[in-house]
């Protein structure tokens, strides 16, 4: 049987799949790095399934790997998760009144689904963009995590430079945020704070303290949703 896809839907589905494939590779890295940081395969997979927000998962695990406390790891993970609340605000008008559907859709409100949905102009394509991205990305994110976590068990993190692997992954995540002046200022300010404060605070807290750099946003400037 030939699967029929209408011509305007095809590009949406194609880019959703391409994006999800790239994210799957990122999940592979997360799996390896999380197990290297001391999480079990089950814990690593549970994070990807239930927390399902990449940057938060990565930051929490990297704070644990450098010897930070659970509270510091949780604090930085939650700070990074807060932006999904803002995405929710932006996406809310696109969804109907059904509470059940909203509760389900809420789990999939992340950087990528927001970017894909808001890139579409008509309601039918917006819905297709959101759900195709959500399903494909969630599947590949969890599959990638599992494979990475299983492989990661046989690797010593320090010998293979995995700590710098974390850093490299953060850089690729940081790039879209450097498009605005405020984004660049926040990144530089947060980065400096986290190094300057390191000698004076317990491990992990300088990362939380870097959050103070967001007050650069008090000064008005148009900020776009990162893509």
């Amino acid at each position, binding site marked *: 049987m030939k699967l029929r896809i209408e011509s305007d839907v095809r590009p949406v589905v194609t880019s959703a799949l391409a994006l999800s494939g790239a994210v799957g590779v990122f999940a592979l890295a997360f799996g390896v790095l999380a197990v290297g940081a001391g999480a079990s395969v089950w814990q690593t997979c549970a994070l990807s399934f239930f927390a399902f927000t990449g940057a938060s998962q990565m930051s929490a695990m990297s704070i644990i790997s450098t010897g930070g406390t659970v509270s510091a*790891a949780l604090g930085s993970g939650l700070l*990074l998760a807060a932006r999904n609340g803002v995405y*929710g605000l932006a996406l809310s008008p696109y969804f109907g009144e059904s509470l059940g559907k909203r509760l389900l859709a809420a789990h999939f409100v992340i950087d990528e689904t927001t970017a894909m949905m808001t890139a579409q102009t008509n309601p039918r394509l917006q819905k297709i963009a959101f759900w195709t991205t959500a399903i494909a990305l969630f599947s590949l994110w969890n599959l990638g995590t599992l494979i990475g976590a299983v492989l990661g068990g046989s690797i010593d993190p320090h010998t293979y430079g995995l700590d*710098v692997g974390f850093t490299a992954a*953060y850089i690729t995540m940081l790039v879209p945020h450097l498009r605005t002046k405020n984004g660049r200022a926040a990144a530089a300010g947060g980065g400096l704070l986290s190094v300057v404060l390191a000698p004076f605070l317990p491990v992990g807290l300088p*990362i939380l303290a870097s959050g103070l750099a967001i007050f*650069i*946003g008090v000064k008005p400037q148009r900020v776009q949703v*990162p893509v």
Partner: protein
Amino acid sequence: MSWTLVIWLSAGAYAFKMLGFVVVGSRTLPDVLSRCLMLIPAALLGAMVLNGTFTDAQSVVIDERAVGLLVAVVAAWRKLPLIVVVVLAAATTALLRMA
């Protein structure tokens, strides 16, 4: 590692997603608040990169990781795929540590 982190991070992440989507609904946040919230990733990712490279416990240090960072920045700037950026940076650091 304890399950506490896994459980609280999962619950917290869902709470934030739901807060904007279900609870606040179609109301809007003050501009200044959403502008600041949207800068959280930039500030924290910047911190993760520099803190992760230039500190060791509570001391400020420059070691093999700085070279790994440099390699990652160049690779990301040349728009190489994520996995290539990660592997290049990790491999550079690993080789220097072996030397």
